[in-house]
C-alpha cells in the first residue's frame, strides 16, 4: 500500500478520543484483576478467622496502608509505562516513602522494652507469606498485562516490572485479609519480599508478553 493512501485511510477513520482513556483502561483491568485476586484469597486461603475484631487492629491497618500506598505508586508507574516518552523514574523513586515509613515503624516496634524480636520478624507464616502474596497477585498481574498491551509500552522490562509492582502490592493488600500477622517488621520483610517477587516476575515476562 502506498503511504499516502494509508494516511488518507487513517484520516478517514479518525474518531475523537476521550480524555482519560488510558487511566480508564488500566483501572478497569485493575478491578477485574482484584476480583480474581480476592477469589484466589477466599478460595485457596480463606478470610482470617478473627476478621471482625482484627479489622480495627493497628497491625491490620499497617498492612492495608503500606500495601495500598505501594499499589498507588505502582499504578502511576504502569500508567507512565503505557505512554511513550513518559518518565517512570519519578514515581518509582517515590517508593522510598512507604519503604522508609515501614522501616521506621519496624525500628520503633523493635525498640520497645518487651519486644519479641524473633516473633516480630518471623511470625508464624514467614515461610509461606511471600509465596502466597505472589499467588494472590497473579490474576491482577495478568489483567494489567492484558491492559498494557492495548497501550504503548516501549520499554517492556520496565513496564512489566511496573505491572508486577502494582499487582504485587494489590495482591499483598488482598492477602492481608487472610494473614493474621500484624508486626511491622514482619510486614516490612515478607510482604515487601512478596511484592518484590511479583515485580521480578513481571519484569522477566514483560519482553515476551507485552510486545505489540
Amino acid at each position, binding site marked *: 500500500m502506498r*503511504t499516502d493512501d*494509508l494516511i488518507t485511510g487513517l484520516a478517514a477513520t479518525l474518531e475523537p*478520543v476521550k480524555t482519560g482513556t488510558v487511566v480508564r483502561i488500566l483501572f478497569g483491568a485493575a478491578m477485574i484483576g482484584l476480583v480474581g485476586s480476592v477469589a484466589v484469597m477466599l478460595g485457596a486461603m480463606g478470610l482470617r478467622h478473627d476478621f471482625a475484631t482484627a479489622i480495627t487492629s493497628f497491625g491490620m491497618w499497617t498492612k492495608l496502608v503500606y500495601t495500598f500506598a505501594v499499589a498507588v505508586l505502582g499504578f502511576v508507574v504502569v500508567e507512565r509505562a503505557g505512554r*511513550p*516518552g*513518559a518518565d517512570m523514574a519519578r514515581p518509582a523513586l517515590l517508593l522510598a516513602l512507604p519503604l522508609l515509613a515501614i522501616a521506621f515503624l519496624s525500628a520503633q516496634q523493635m525498640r520497645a522494652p518487651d519486644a519479641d524480636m524473633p516473633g516480630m520478624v518471623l511470625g508464624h507464616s514467614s515461610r509461606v507469606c511471600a509465596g502466597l502474596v505472589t499467588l494472590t497477585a497473579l490474576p491482577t498481574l495478568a489483567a494489567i498485562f492484558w491492559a498494557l498491551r492495548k497501550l504503548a509500552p*516501549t520499554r517492556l522490562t520496565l513496564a512489566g516490572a511496573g505491572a508486577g509492582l502494582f499487582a504485587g502490592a494489590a495482591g499483598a493488600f488482598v492477602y492481608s485479609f487472610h494473614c493474621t500477622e500484624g508486626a511491622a517488621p514482619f510486614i516490612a520483610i515478607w510482604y515487601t519480599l512478596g511484592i518484590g517477587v511479583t515485580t521480578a516476575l513481571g519484569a522477566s515476562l514483560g519482553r515476551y508478553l507485552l510486545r505489540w
Partner: protein
Amino acid sequence: MIAQEAQYRDWMLAALMGDASAYRMLLAALTRHLRSYYARRLDPAAAEDAVQETLIAIHARRATYDPALPFTAWVYGIARYKLIDEFRRRKRRPTVPLDEAGDLFGHDEAEEAIARRDVSKLLEKLPPAKRDLVKDIKLDGVSVAEAAKRTGMSESAVKVTVHRAIKSLNASLGKTPERRGDADG
C-alpha cells in the same frame, strides 16, 4: 525543545478531538521525519514498511499521548520501539542508543537541502559524462544495467567509472574512500 513541537502538538490535540484535516497534515509531516529516520537505519523496503507500521501504531495508540508531555517525545518513543521491533524480528540485537527525540526531528529538510546543494557543487568537479553517471546511479537510484544501456558502456565499465569518480571526489575532500557497510550489515 524541538522546533516543530508546538505546531505538531496543536495538530495532535485537534486530531484527538476528531479534526481529520489537522490529522492528515500531522501524519504527512511525521511521514517525512520517519522516512529519513528509518532510511538511515534500515534498507529501503524495510524502511517504508516501518514508516507505515509506525503510522498505524500512532493511529491505533493515539490515546496514549498525554497532552501534558512533549508530542515529539511521544512519536520518537513509538518510532524507536518500531525500529527495535524490526531488528528483533531479524534476530539482530543491536543496541539502539537512548537518544532524544531530536534524533527523529533534528534532521530537518533545510539541512537536507544544504546537503543536496553541497553534493551538486561537488559533482560539478567531475567531467559531464561521469557526473551524469554518478548522479543517475548514486542519487537517483538508476540500476547499473539501465545506466549501461543508456550510455552504451558495459556494466563493469559503468561500475568502474562510478567507483573511480567517487574515489576522486573523496580525494578532493581530503578523505579516504569509506566502506559503505553500515547500512547493509
